[in-house]
């Protein structure tokens, strides 16, 4: 009888699949459909924000849809260090963005008839995995569930290398080293046919969040922005770049000593016009104008339309902040930079595999969108390995939604899905320990 039941299980296999890449900064969610275009994916802030100005609390998507004033928002993020820690707030956000009636039409789903593909970062503590499994089945009641490493999902996404033939959906790339530069940290994961080589996963504890916080510290030397997380995040996205020649760039923007004043290079220094959330909704950068009178600007004299402009001059902060990814020792962090971390990961594998992974490095994650990141990474890697080795580094076409896209392509292949999915009945029969063994690939079914 039992055999019959398990044989029947595939026929009860839910037809809809919700792919959810639950990042620390944004969650990427969408129902997998045959065409699996990235624009099916909704990017939702994964936080609960409280505004001190209008005394309102914004949950997840409300922040981008309804909030007008991003000043002095206090954030509460359910995801800490990449892992879902606070399920109380995560549940509120999921309900608001996926399960609610207010959720977008193409995202609404009945958990009882849906399979959930949930991403997780590597090397998660066991208790947190247990919590996730229990919440998905017992609280939300999803019919099927697959907890997959986010880099493993990325390996199902189309290859960013032009020369590689595109594989049909549902098939992972053969050899791949995914560098996931996320909000909490940067991980390097070698994958073989979509299966992670667990012993070689490394993590550099510098992520978008670290950069934002460092930016906040540096700007606060001249102008206090300690409470403006959202604003500093926007400034970082707008002006930061990875320097290709750090020493020279730093020299260019030095103001000089007392007796040998120099003029900082105008191509680096920018004026950032701060938003006031009335006339200027989002801040923007423009070339630095040393003749500008800040006080007059603040009073609205000499500006276009007579609007009041508050200006922040940003110089070496533009490239000193992303430099942390390559030289974490600048803040005293006892970890090697990203290129060395990648090599640590590769060198822990047999020598015959080195070339395969060095030639297939794919960069994903929002932090990798900083301009110059890819060039610097490739240049440093190139200088660190033998010249007869081929080094190829590419950024995924859409670095933020790459894991989601991979998940959506995985979900199209029924056969591949059945291999990774645990149904609710399996969970009720076999318990959570068994489910965790399945997700770790330790048990056959």
């Amino acid at each position: 009888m039992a055999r019959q039941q398990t044989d029947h299980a595939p026929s009860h296999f839910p037809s809809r699949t919700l792919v959810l890449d639950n990042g620390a900064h944004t969650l990427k969610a969408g129902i997998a459909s045959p065409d699996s275009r990235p624009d099916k994916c909704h990017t939702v802030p994964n936080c609960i924000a409280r505004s001190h100005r209008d005394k309102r609390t914004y949950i997840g998507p409300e922040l981008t849809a309804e909030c007008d004033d991003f000043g002095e928002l206090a954030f509460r993020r359910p995801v800490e260090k990449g892992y879902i820690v606070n399920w109380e707030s995560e549940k509120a956000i999921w309900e608001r963005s996926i399960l609610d009636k207010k959720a977008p039409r193409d995202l609404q789903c009945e958990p009882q008839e849906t399979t959930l593909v949930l991403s997780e970062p590597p090397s998660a503590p066991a208790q947190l995995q247990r919590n996730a499994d229990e919440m998905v089945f017992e609280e939300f009641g999803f019919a099927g569930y697959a907890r997959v490493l986010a880099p493993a999902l990325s390996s199902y996404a189309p290859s960013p290398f032009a020369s590689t033939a595109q594989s049909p959906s549902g098939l992972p790339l053969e050899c791949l080293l995914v560098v996931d530069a996320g909000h909490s940290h940067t991980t390097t994961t070698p994958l073989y046919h979509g299966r992670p080589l667990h012993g070689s996963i490394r993590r550099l504890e510098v992520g978008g969040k670290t950069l934002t916080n460092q930016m906040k510290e540096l700007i606060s030397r001249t102008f206090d922005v300690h409470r403006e997380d959202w604003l500093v995040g926007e400034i970082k996205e707008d002006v930061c770049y990875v320097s290709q020649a750090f020493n020279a760039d730093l020299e260019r923007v030095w103001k000089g000593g007392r007796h040998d004043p120099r003029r900082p290079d105008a191509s680096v220094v920018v004026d950032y016009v701060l938003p006031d959330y009335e006339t200027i909704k989002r801040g923007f950068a423009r070339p630095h104008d040393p003749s500008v009178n800040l006080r007059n600007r603040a009073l609205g004299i000499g500006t276009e339309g007579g609007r009041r402009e508050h200006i922040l001059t940003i110089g070496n902060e533009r490239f000193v902040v992303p430099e942390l990814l390559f030289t974490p020792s600048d803040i005293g962090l006892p970890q090697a930079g990203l290129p060395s971390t990648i090599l640590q990961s590769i060198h822990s594998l047999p020598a015959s595999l080195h070339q395969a992974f060095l030639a297939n490095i794919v960069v994903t994650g929002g932090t990798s969108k900083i301009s110059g990141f890819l060039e610097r990474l490739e240049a440093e890697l190139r200088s660190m390995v033998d010249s007869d080795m081929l080094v190829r580094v590419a950024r995924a076409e859409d670095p933020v939604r790459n894991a989601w896209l991979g998940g959506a392509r995985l979900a199209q292949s029924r056969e591949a899905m059945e291999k990774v999915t645990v149904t609710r009945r399996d969970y009720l029969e076999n318990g959570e320990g068994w489910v965790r063994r399945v997700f770790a690939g330790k048990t056959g079914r």
Partner: protein
Amino acid sequence: MASGPLRFRTPHIEELATAQSRQTPGFAWVAVSGGQGDPAKNWGTSNRKRQRTSLGGQTEQQKEALSARQQREIERKIRDLSSDNSKDARELPIPKRDGSSSGGGGAARPGKTTNTKRILASGKTFAHYLDDEEAEIIRTGRRDVDLEAPTQSAAQRPSKTPLHRRKVRENSAASVTPEPTTASSRPPPKLQTAQSSSGPEVVEVPVDSLADESLRLPTEAELEALLNAPPLTYNEARSAPPSSGAPAPRRFCETCGYWGRVRCMKCGSMVCSVTCKDDHDQFKCLKMYA
């Protein structure tokens, strides 16, 4: 033992060199350094300031305290930089959802089962979970009891699953095991069985499927062993520090961000130029009277 005229049983007392002086009632160790105690060498220096400069700016104790403080400062800074939430986020309440809005109904209820009630109500942070896991590893010597249960023994059942169900699982496992044989036409999907590594019918990956790589890959068994390696713990996966041959950490000016070329004698932070030093002294130097 008692060979000599030993009358009193006294414990062996040894004086350990220490740089610290500790105050005990009626008794004090005082660290005496160098020629300081010699009045012939520093005659007439009742001036404490001069005494200090003759020692090269700072005493050992002061230097030690300074470096310890800087270390603490660095650790605090890194903690701040990697904080996820805003400072006052702990008190940030989650607004109650109106119960009708959820499809499941009763969304405001804190959890549907005992497990989820416990999870939802727990106020643990990531640091708590990490400490729990480390303690668990020390206690059991293994990372994850769940994951290793089936490999211990086939006879001992890991779960409450009835016996007949378990038999089914093994059968289906056997049907999955020959999967690698098809590797030539189609790469094996992820999450494969652990048995294929130990099983006798291990199949080599045909070379033609890997023709685009110039190097010979390790055998299938080696790869399986790599793929089935247990995941590293959170702390093990951390990137290792740079090698000892790496250049010393760069220091930057606290005021303007240029190279830090001069250290402030009072607080130990770096500045680049006289202009920045003035600014530092005026507004930022935290140690006014050192």
